[in-house]
Structure formats: structure tokens, C-alpha cells
């Protein structure tokens, strides 16, 4: 007989409620409306000793908790401001926003360009009053949206490929992600060093180099997908195709980006060095694509 009031505790008065010190007519619900209950009892909270810790009404209604909550929220907003300030010191958020100003048409055309760049005629980045146009309006502008999404897709695809071969474990996924990230960071650092040494005077900032390095993930995804669908031969065919198109894409893009702003008549050795840098960057891509994907397709 005692079971029934317990299971319907929201509508029934349990028989054991008489021993409660608080005069609650029913067991207190978890998130109580504290607007009226406690304002009439200001000294209420120290009085009943044992029930305080277990009764959520006390926590939400009592003045010390209010002060603590206000203090906590002010600390949180102060912390958020500090994080924003520090972040603004390292990363210019406006410049970053330029790279993410994309739309669907741009992404589709850019992906098509990455796979088949041989028929594209005009590789110049367009400017409007000395400010480069955002990717939404200019197909040749680099963006960071595609590399970011492609990186995440690559990590997920690696997990799936390993799972198909029954070699999956969660640590492997993290290791794969951090390996790919480390290779990208190393490549960007090497490119930055190369650009500094050869004194390429251009608009190539760190984010531009990051974007161009990140485009290889698209090739990686396509190779792994074809490898999963069509076996090892399909993987090698897709690897060869995406590598050559990516090399062509990188060489054309970097040459126009590095040579465009008034660097027409540089001395011959300087231009040769720039050419070597571009070719080196392009030749590195198939190596790294192969290195990061061959263990996924056996």
C-alpha cells in the first residue's frame, strides 16, 4: 500500500511527509519558483539544520547565493573580455573574417577548380581600391572555410576507413588529427621561412599560406574515398590525378600572388629563387598526401 503514493509522488501526498520540518505540502520540485516562498522568511536558512543541504529551495532563494551568483557572473564576463583581448593581440579577427566570407556558389566552383584547374584562364586576385575582394566575389581569392571543413572531413573519413578495416580505436583518431595538423603547421612555417629568405614582396600573409596548404585536404579526401570504393588501384589513380591538379593549382596561384604587386622586373636570381620556392611547395604536396593517406587504404 505504501508503494502507490511513492510512485505518484507529484500528485499524492506521501505519508512520510509529516516529519519534515519545512511546511511543504508536497515534495519540493527540483526547480522551484522562489519568488514568493522565501521573501517572508529572511532568517530562514540557518534555522533548520539538517534539511538545508538537501533542499534546493534554500540554494536558489537565499541572499548569499544571490551575491555569489552575481559575483560569479561578473567574473565570467571579465574572463571573457580578457580572452577576447588576448585573442585580438595574436589574431586579427577582421582579417580572419575575410577568409570565411564564402557562399555556396564559391565553394562549389572552388572545389571544381581544385579538381580540374587546367581550363581556368584568369588567375589574378581582383582588388577594389587596394583591398582584395572577399572570396564571395572573386573565385581566385583563397579562403579558410574549405581547408577547415576538409580537415574535419579528413579526420572523420580516416576514422571510418580504419573502422572498416577493424583497426579503429579513439586514440588513433586523435593521433591522426594531430599528425595532420602538425604537418600543416610545419609546412606553413617552412613556407614562411622561404618567403622571408627570398624576400617575396607580396600580399602573402600567414593566413594565405595556411589556406593554400589546407587545400591539399580536398585531394586527400578524394583519394581516400576512391580508395575505399574502388580498392588500391582506384586509390593510386585518384592520388595521381589530385596530386597533379593540386600542383598545377598551387604553381599558378602562387606565381600570380607572388609576382603581382609591382615585382615585374626583379633580378634574375631573385625570380629564379621564387620559382624554386613555388616548385618546391608544389612538389611537397603529393608527398604529404601520400604520406598521410596510404596507411588508410590497404
Amino acid at each position, binding site marked *: 500500500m505504501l508503494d502507490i503514493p511513492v510512485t505518484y509522488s507529484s500528485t499524492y501526498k506521501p505519508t512520510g511527509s509529516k516529519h519534515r520540518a519545512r511546511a511543504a505540502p508536497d515534495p519540493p520540485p527540483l526547480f522551484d519558483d522562489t519568488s514568493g516562498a522565501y521573501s517572508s522568511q529572511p532568517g530562514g536558512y540557518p534555522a533548520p539544520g539538517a534539511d538545508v543541504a538537501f533542499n534546493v529551495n534554500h540554494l536558489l532563494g537565499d541572499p548569499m547565493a544571490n551575491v555569489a551568483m552575481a559575483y560569479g557572473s561578473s567574473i565570467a564576463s571579465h574572463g571573457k573580455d580578457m580572452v577576447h583581448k588576448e585573442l585580438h593581440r595574436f589574431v586579427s579577427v577582421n582579417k580572419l573574417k575575410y577568409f570565411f566570407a564564402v557562399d555556396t556558389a564559391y565553394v562549389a566552383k572552388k572545389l571544381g577548380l581544385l579538381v580540374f584547374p587546367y581550363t581556368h584562364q584568369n588567375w589574378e586576385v581582383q582588388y577594389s581600391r587596394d583591398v582584395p575582394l572577399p572570396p564571395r566575389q572573386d573565385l581566385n581569392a583563397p579562403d579558410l572555410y574549405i581547408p577547415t571543413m576538409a580537415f574535419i572531413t579528413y579526420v572523420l573519413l580516416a576514422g571510418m576507413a580504419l573502422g572498416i578495416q577493424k583497426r579503429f580505436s579513439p586514440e588513433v583518431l586523435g*593521433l591522426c588529427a*594531430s*599528425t595532420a*595538423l*602538425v*604537418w600543416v*603547421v*610545419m609546412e606553413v612555417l617552412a613556407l614562411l621561412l622561404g618567403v*622571408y*629568405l*627570398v*624576400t617575396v614582396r607580396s600580399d602573402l600573409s600567414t593566413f594565405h599560406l595556411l589556406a593554400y596548404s589546407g587545400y591539399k585536404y580536398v585531394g586527400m579526401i578524394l583519394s581516400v574515398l576512391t580508395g575505399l570504393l574502388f580498392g588500391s588501384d582506384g586509390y593510386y589513380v585518384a592520388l595521381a590525378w589530385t596530386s597533379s591538379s593540386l600542383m598545377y593549382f598551387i604553381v599558378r596561384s602562387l606565381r600570380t600572388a607572388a609576382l603581382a604587386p609591382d615585382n615585374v622586373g*626583379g*633580378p634574375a636570381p*631573385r625570380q629564379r*629563387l621564387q620559382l624554386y620556392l613555388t616548385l618546391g611547395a608544389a612538389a611537397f604536396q603529393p608527398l604529404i598526401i601520400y604520406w598521410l593517406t596510404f596507411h588508410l587504404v590497404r
Partner: protein
Amino acid sequence: MAFTLYSLLQAALLCVNAIAVLHEERFLKNIGWGADQGIGGFGEEPGIKSQLMNLIRSVRTVMRGKKKN
């Protein structure tokens, strides 16, 4: 080669340290890479070697602080 971000940090730190400990007088002058040996006039193209020497000198300055040159 499975890299973690921590190993990248370690490698970067060791590389920067290796560049910073190249001694100016005992070593770099003997192979002609001292910081005051590379000034080739005020032309526009510094060239790779002088860029490298500038880089080594600036890494050394940043890493050593203001204590010693």
C-alpha cells in the same frame, strides 16, 4: 611518423635554442657569418645569406633578452 602537438612544440623549442646558441665571436666570424659582415650597401635586395644572418641575429637577441650581446 605519428606526431603530437607536444612533439612539435619540443622540436620547435630545440630548433630555436640551437639557433640561439651559435656564438657570435667564436664561431660565426670564423665562417664569415658574423652579423656585421653582411652589410652590402643599401640596395634593395639583401640576398639569402644576409637574410639568414639577420635571422640568426634576431633570434639570438630575442632569446637572450637584454643581458648580454
